[in-house]
């Protein structure tokens, strides 16, 4: 569209902007943010979004802890992370803004749009707090616009708490120079269930917000979109996972509700029937994986979806799937730990739990998508690996991928991605149920219904016939065969690609959702001529090959993780007593290289600027060490 139709100030053209909408819980800032992000993406802009979620369902209103909202990084080009500081923040009250200031989400010149109705609140305490805060924001250098959000909403509703979000959506559309005509239909889709009156009311709120902004907002922006040449889709990581599950031909998702994994199951529950599948909500996490294993054993490889505490409960059955060699896909959408930890917030702390949390030696495949697009494609890989390698495959996502939205190239579905029909042909009774290939450890499995293949699957030590066998030679052999499979898979993997030059002063290693932020930080430093590169791992077990060789080309290797590690210099923490973050520990044992780490557990994605600052510091240390040596 052209901005000629607009009567207000001319929009300034920018290549990207970070926008946040912040409210009390229950005021719908997330709905507003999702709809705006959807509009941006569907128009061809690059986006990356983050949900800002309070830990409680209904925290007290006007509290710092209660901030609920949505961040949208909007750009002309594709974006890979949530960016650094917000350029524009819309706040439904001034107190929730403080939580964003405390989180270091704002910079000096951030534009703030704050609901000014609090200035006229009957409670003098609230009036004073509001006035003080506005003065404080200005003193901090923010550019404040006081907006009569509630007053305007009252023209259409007696309950402005339920209307502010659509009014603000209108304001955003005008501020960012979007054509308002498409939104009417989107509102009808969202609110249609609540009836015609609700749709009309929300459309009216939207239009009023739009018109108000055109007349009153001084700062308007236009983020040009790139021309779309290939079909694109936009969704969040949990939706991508769910579509991947269906595209892999998985017919059964067996789950128990847990944040932040559940939204994948919600999406599946409302769609999987169209592909002939089902979602089973089990009585607990253990039953959820048990049910999935039963399905898989009977021929239909199933998926179970969980988060950290659920994974903890599933580990006995995970070990069973390893021991008895049952194909199974386990999705873990990680949140903060330990224990119940940070239920709604991002962390990468379940890596060790995924790798090791099961009795005894239980080698299993662990993969981690780094993008929302990979959340889709990895499910197809996971089912195939589970069946070919006859065991569980863990897929580690996280809260950042789960709730972030990003456009990606629309996959062209292939029939070969779908699971093959269940084999019911007769089984040669001469072939035992674990006819382990002496070289690879691989074997085919008989499925109930295959005449001649009748056998008893067991979690006890067993021989090729699946007969319980406790003698030492058979136990040693079974262990070797199950472990061998990982070595075989590893032999088929390529070494990871180095982002940047294949040699330099510093190599950063990451995994999972931190990909975009790490690469953006590396690119900024490389643009200055600094010799830093990065590697991002998708296979954690077996580990991708060639790491030692790659690491040997760099002066220093370090991981960046959303994980805990001790800081050298803290009481009792020395370089030899320090606990490293999980990926660093893994790489150290894998490669015998002195891999360092910088990791934090802020409960939010690591911004590229924060990573950049850390890398800069390490590079300076490398340089000064080199000088000392010279």
């Amino acid at each position, binding site marked *: 569209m052209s901005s000629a139709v607009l009567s207000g100030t001319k929009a300034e053209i920018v290549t990207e902007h970070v926008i946040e909408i912040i409210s009390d819980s229950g005021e719908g800032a997330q709905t507003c943010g999702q709809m705006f992000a959807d509009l941006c993406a569907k128009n061809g802009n690059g986006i990356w979004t983050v949900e800002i979620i309070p830990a409680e369902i209904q925290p007290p209103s006007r509290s710092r802890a209660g901030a609920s909202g949505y961040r949208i990084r909007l750009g002309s080009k594709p974006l890979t992370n949530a960016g650094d500081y917000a350029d524009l923040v819309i706040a439904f009250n001034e107190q929730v803004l403080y939580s964003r200031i405390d989180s270091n989400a704002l910079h000096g010149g951030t534009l703030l749009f704050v609901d000014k109705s609090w200035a006229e609140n009957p409670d003098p305490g609230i009036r004073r707090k509001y006035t003080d805060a506005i003065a404080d924001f200005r003193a901090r250098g923010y550019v404040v616009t006081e907006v009569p959000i509630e007053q305007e909403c009252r023209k259409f509703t007696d309950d402005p708490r339920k209307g502010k979000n659509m009014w603000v959506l209108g304001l955003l559309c005008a501020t960012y120079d979007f054509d308002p005509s498409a939104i009417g239909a989107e509102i009808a889709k969202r609110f249609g269930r609540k009836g015609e009156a609700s749709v009309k009311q929300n459309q009216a709120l939207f239009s009023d917000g739009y018109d108000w902004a055109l007349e009153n907002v001084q700062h308007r922006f236009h983020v040009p979109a790139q021309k779309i040449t290939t079909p694109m889709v936009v969704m969040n990581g949990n939706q991508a996972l769910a579509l991947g599950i269906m595209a892999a031909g998985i017919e059964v998702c067996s789950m128990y509700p847990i944040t932040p994994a559940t939204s994948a199951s919600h999406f599946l529950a409302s769609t999987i029937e169209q592909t002939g599948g089902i979602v*089973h909500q089990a009585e607990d996490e253990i*039953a959820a994986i048990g049910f999935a294993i039963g399905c898989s054993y009977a021929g239909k490889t199933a998926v179970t979806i969980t988060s950290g505490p659920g994974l903890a409960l599933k580990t006995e059955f995970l070990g069973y799937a390893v021991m008895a060699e049952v194909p199974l896909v386990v999705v873990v959408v990680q949140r903060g730990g330990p224990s119940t930890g940070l239920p709604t917030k991002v962390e990468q702390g379940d890596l060790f739990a995924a790798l090791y949390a099961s009795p005894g030696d239980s080698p299993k495949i662990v993969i981690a998508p780094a993008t929302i697009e990979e959340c889709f494609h990895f499910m197809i890989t996971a089912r195939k690996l589970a069946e070919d390698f006859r065991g569980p495959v863990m897929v580690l996502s996280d809260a950042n991928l789960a709730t972030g939205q990003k456009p990606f190239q629309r996959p062209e579905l292939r029939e070969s991605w779908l699971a093959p029909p269940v084999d019911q042909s007769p089984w040669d009774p001469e072939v035992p149920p674990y006819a382990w290939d002496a070289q690879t450890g691989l074997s085919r499995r008989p499925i109930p219904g295959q005449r001649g293949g009748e056998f008893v699957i067991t979690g006890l030590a067993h021989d090729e016939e699946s007969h319980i066998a406790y003698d030492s030679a058979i136990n040693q052999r079974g262990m070797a065969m199950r472990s061998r499979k990982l070595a075989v898979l590893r032999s088929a993997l390529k070494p990871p690609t180095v982002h940047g030059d294949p040699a330099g002063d510093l190599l950063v290693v990451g995994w999972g959702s931190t990909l975009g932020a790490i690469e953006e930080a590396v690119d900024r430093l490389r643009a200055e001529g600094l010799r830093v590169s990065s590697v991002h791992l998708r296979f954690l077990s077996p580990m991708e090959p060639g790491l030692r060789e790659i690491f040997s080309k760099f002066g220093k290797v370090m991981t960046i993780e959303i994980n805990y590690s001790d800081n050298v210099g803290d009481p009792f923490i020395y370089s030899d007593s320090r606990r490293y973050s999980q990926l660093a520990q893994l790489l150290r044992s894998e490669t015998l290289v002195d891999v360092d780490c910088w990791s934090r557990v802020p409960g939010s994605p690591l911004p590229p600027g924060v990573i950049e600052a850390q890398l800069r510091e390490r590079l300076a240390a490398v340089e000064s060490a080199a000088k000392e040596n010279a």
Partner: protein
Amino acid sequence: MYGLKKEWEIEAPARECVLEDYVGAEARWCPGCGDHAVLSTVQRLARDLQLPPEKTVVVSGIGCSSRFPHYMKTYGFHGLHGRALPVAEGVRARRPDLSIFVVTGDGDCCAIGTAHWIHAIRYNMNITILLLDNNVYGLTKNQTSPTSRLGEKSNTQPQGSFFAPLNPISVVLGIANASFVAQTVDWNPPHLYATIRAAHEHKGASFVRVLQRCPHFSSHIFAQAQDDFSQMLLMDHEAGVKLGQPIRGMFPNAVNHDPRDLNKARELADRTDVYPIGVFYRNDNASRYDTVTARGLETTRAEKLAAINGMFDKFAVQGRN
């Protein structure tokens, strides 16, 4: 065939399974263990019903009785302690063609697996559940079980069990959507057979508690009842266990109990003066979850791809023009 009318032709069955077709590894339970009786009963039942061995799955947990699948020559799933039922539900979910038995013990079902037990009854999927209840943990050598009697001594409660025993039948009768609840004893093979047969023929989750002794650790518990049949109360009804007159005659105490009467069933379950045997309760109209989980099995690959493509359409980026 020459000389016979066409309809008199007898087609030889393509396949006839004999008892040996269901007999797996040699059972390693102790001599005198009730598990042997249940095993041979299930093998006979499978033979009598001509269940194809490859279409029969026996799922168990951990414990003496959970070794059961190894002794059958069918498909078997020897799983984790307490977790047989979720596995069996998963097997059933997309396989309406299989016959599924679950064999569990009083520790496996009523202690570590209690949550699954309750929900399995509620889901009412077509599975035959056999609770082999000998009031004691045998495999791990004599620990108190939830069904151990008050004061019964064990290695974990040498002072004697602190609690009155849990009554599995009363528990199951308290669960919404229960559809078949029966009790039998290992020492009366005809009743054992007829009860398990009725359970298997019922469409839904059929729960059978088999009272039995552990020859090592609880040999005294049903000792008197084995010799004195008056200690049992035969629940007799045309909708219950089908018994011949000679078998009925073995039980001096009998009651005509319509198993569709839930309140009466609960009364009988609570009796402590006798061991009621037969069907306490059945509801052939209880809703079955396996009819839900089997939905969509006929979906073609083309239909699946079309559906997923349709979903992608809703996420499509249009582009700003």
